[in-house]
């Protein structure tokens, strides 16, 4: 059985955030919810500064704090390496969110339809913008159930009051595709694949270059590896104030 993971080449990332955009389109996430997020960092003092970028998907940890604390088993670990969320079982206590060291969880604070960039449920608004030319489209793949247990674990923007996060695009991976972020990266910085298989591109890159797992000392054993750079230090600061509230 494949055990999926991601290898991110920091030296290739240009901070274009195409992965974030692709993720939003693919997973239908509401405003303020970033399953994939790219940090834009700055280090050093002027004039000796360096700017670098660090994509942050869900780490899909092998020893996931979020799975351990979930009171109802809505957050669970799949044998293929996915750390998945069953949005059909989640009670919305947000314990996974406070337990996660990486801050990758997003709660639906209101009905996602109202939080979307376009309110599909408000017909008049859509009429006005699209003039009836484009019909609302929902990816039917997101409605299906995945994994051997067949649970509702794909996509985002589901319903009010549940927690969602990066799914590693399980609906694409099960159909033999790469996650949307990796597939759309223009510089090939994101490599998704079977980390147990020595032939896969991801594990070859990991084999060639020395990498790191972010926050290794927390012991969550992330399945996302970084190569071509170093983890952020206390000297690293974000170049922008990100406070995307809904």
């Amino acid at each position, binding site marked *: 059985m494949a055990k999926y993971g991601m290898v991110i080449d920091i030296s290739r990332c240009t901070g274009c955030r195409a992965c974030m955009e692709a993720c939003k389109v693919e997973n239908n996430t509401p405003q*303020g*919810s*970033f399953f994939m*997020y790219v*940090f834009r*960092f700055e280090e050093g003092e002027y004039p000796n500064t360096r700017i670098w970028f660090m994509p*942050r998907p869900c780490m899909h940890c092998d020893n996931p*704090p979020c*799975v*351990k*604390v*979930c*009171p*109802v*088993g*809505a*957050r*669970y*670990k799949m*044998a293929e390496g996915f750390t998945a969320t069953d949005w059909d*079982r*989640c*009670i*919305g*206590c*947000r*314990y996974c*969110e*406070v*337990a*996660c*060291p*990486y*801050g990758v*969880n*997003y*709660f*639906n*604070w*209101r*009905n996602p339809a109202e939080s979307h960039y376009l309110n599909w449920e408000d017909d008049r608004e859509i009429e006005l913008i699209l003039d009836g030319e484009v019909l609302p489209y929902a990816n039917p793949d997101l409605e299906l159930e995945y994994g*051997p*247990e067949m649970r509702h674990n794909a996509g985002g923007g589901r319903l*009010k*009051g*549940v*927690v969602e996060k990066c799914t590693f695009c399980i609906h694409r991976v099960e159909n033999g595709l790469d996650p949307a972020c990796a597939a759309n990266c223009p510089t090939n910085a994101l490599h998704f694949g079977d980390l147990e298989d020595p032939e896969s591109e991801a594990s070859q890159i990991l084999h060639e270059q020395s990498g790191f797992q*972010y*926050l290794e000392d927390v*012991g*969550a054993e992330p399945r996302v590896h970084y190569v071509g750079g170093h983890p952020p230090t*206390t000297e*690293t600061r*974000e170049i922008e*104030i*990100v*406070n*995307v*509230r*809904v």
Partner: protein
Amino acid sequence: MRFNTEQLPFGVASLSRKWQAAILILVGFISFGVYAYSRQWSEGLIVTGLRDIGTMGGAAWGLYISFDIYFVGVSFAGITLAALIRLLNLKQLKPISRMAEVVTVISLILAGLTILPDLGQPVRGLTNLFRYARPQSPFFGTFTLVISGYLFGSMVYLYLDVRRDAAIMAQKSSRFQSLYKLIAAGYRDTPAERARHSTTSLWLSIAILPLLITAHSTLGFVFGLQAGRPGWFGSLQAPAFVIMAGISGIGVLMIITAILRKVLGLEEQLKPEIFKWMGNFTIILILTYLYFMVVDWLTGSYAAAPHEARVSDAILIGEYAWLFWGVVLTLVVSAGILISPYLPSPKIIENPNFRRTTRRLARATGTFTIALLAVLAIEVFNPTEQAVIGLPTTFMQWLPLAAAILALLSIVSYIPFLRESIIARSVLSGILVNLAAIAKRYLIVVPSQTHGTLLPYNVGSYSPTWVEYSIILGLLAFGVLLFITFLKIFPIMEVEASKSDPIVERKPGPETGLTTRSILSLGLVVIGFALQFVSYFFLAAPIGIPTNESFSNPRLPYSPALFIGGVMLVFLAAIVYELFPEREVS
């Protein structure tokens, strides 16, 4: 039909105008809370101040969780005290034993209710927790042991305690007579029955004490086990929770005892010694807690990792400093108030000029404090988007501290009065320690989320909205209403049965060795524990590093409900032991 309700003791079943007014006001607060919750129900938690940790720069847990911990904390003192009174035979505290039990039951009900507004899907919460709850989640302990087991255990304890009184009250005609008969369940106050009650209450006390420590520690574990949250991760969380639980619980009890003493005219029964005992116990607990805070502060700032240091800086000198130092000040002052009679009296207090000046000072500061709090209240309970007064946020944050400091200053002028009256000391320190407890709970929950992200996210912020405040206020009012209802249905203290009452039939029944009764209840205890053991270790979701899906599903659906059933069976054994019909002795 009119009942003569005059004979019932402790004002039971009589509703004077004042009581009716009190109930009306409480119902008003509850309705506003329900209205606030209806907003949240229809629009989602967007109406609260909570937001996602990380890119959204918020806190996912806030006022609801803080108050949930606070309520569970308050419950601690009640049943502990009741159990200690029974175990250590503290006769002088016997009059407050039942009050303590009622406080426990009510605060646990409130704790259970507070969880619901925090859930995004409350209906799913009610079903899925019973169906899927995983022992590995610290919430399992909170949900099963604290809310279910502990609440049920306390209710059994309370029930068996009021049974004798119900039997006595059932003798008199009143509007609750049939209810009393039902509750008394054939109790006739025979020596055998008394002996049985003494046995069960002893065993219940023994059973409840370890459950207590476990239950309150579990709540500490909800936070203390999270390695990914600087400021939470630590072994001190669980014991500190237990100590703070004791402080706030006894504080509530001191206030309630003082109020009932005045309202029901119980000066005879509730002697100052009771307050003295509670006060001294509180002093010890406060000192212990202050010691814990110092230890915590040293660990968090001496040579801590940068992330730990960021959280502790935010608390000690940063955004939350006003609250933290407010807590320290409040705890020190309340300990000082309780200690004051043991200290030598400074001459200046006797000086009439000093007294006059300080009294004026108190009046002025008191008025000013009330005005400040009114300003704050207008902003806090404002359901509209726009600010009414539009003061800057930092000012609004320091406002409560300013009010608190002024209020504390005005206490100085009451020192002579406080030195004389132990009741005043107890009430004042009871109020202060509870404010400190609520603030400390908030300081545990929130700063680690806004300032304790391990990734270099920006610093977050959280300020509760009117919805959160209103729901909490409604819950508090609901708690008071429950207490009043209890007061009006049951006597708050043990009733003395008069000699002429036919209830006391001294007919010794032979009760030795293994009777059907004891076998039956012992069997229930054994089955209960077995059920707990089996459902926890074998039927619920497995414990371990969750490498695959099997860790998310119970091996038998609804096994968490089975576990709760096991906990309940153990306590049910006490009821069976006491209520099992006596064989007729010929």
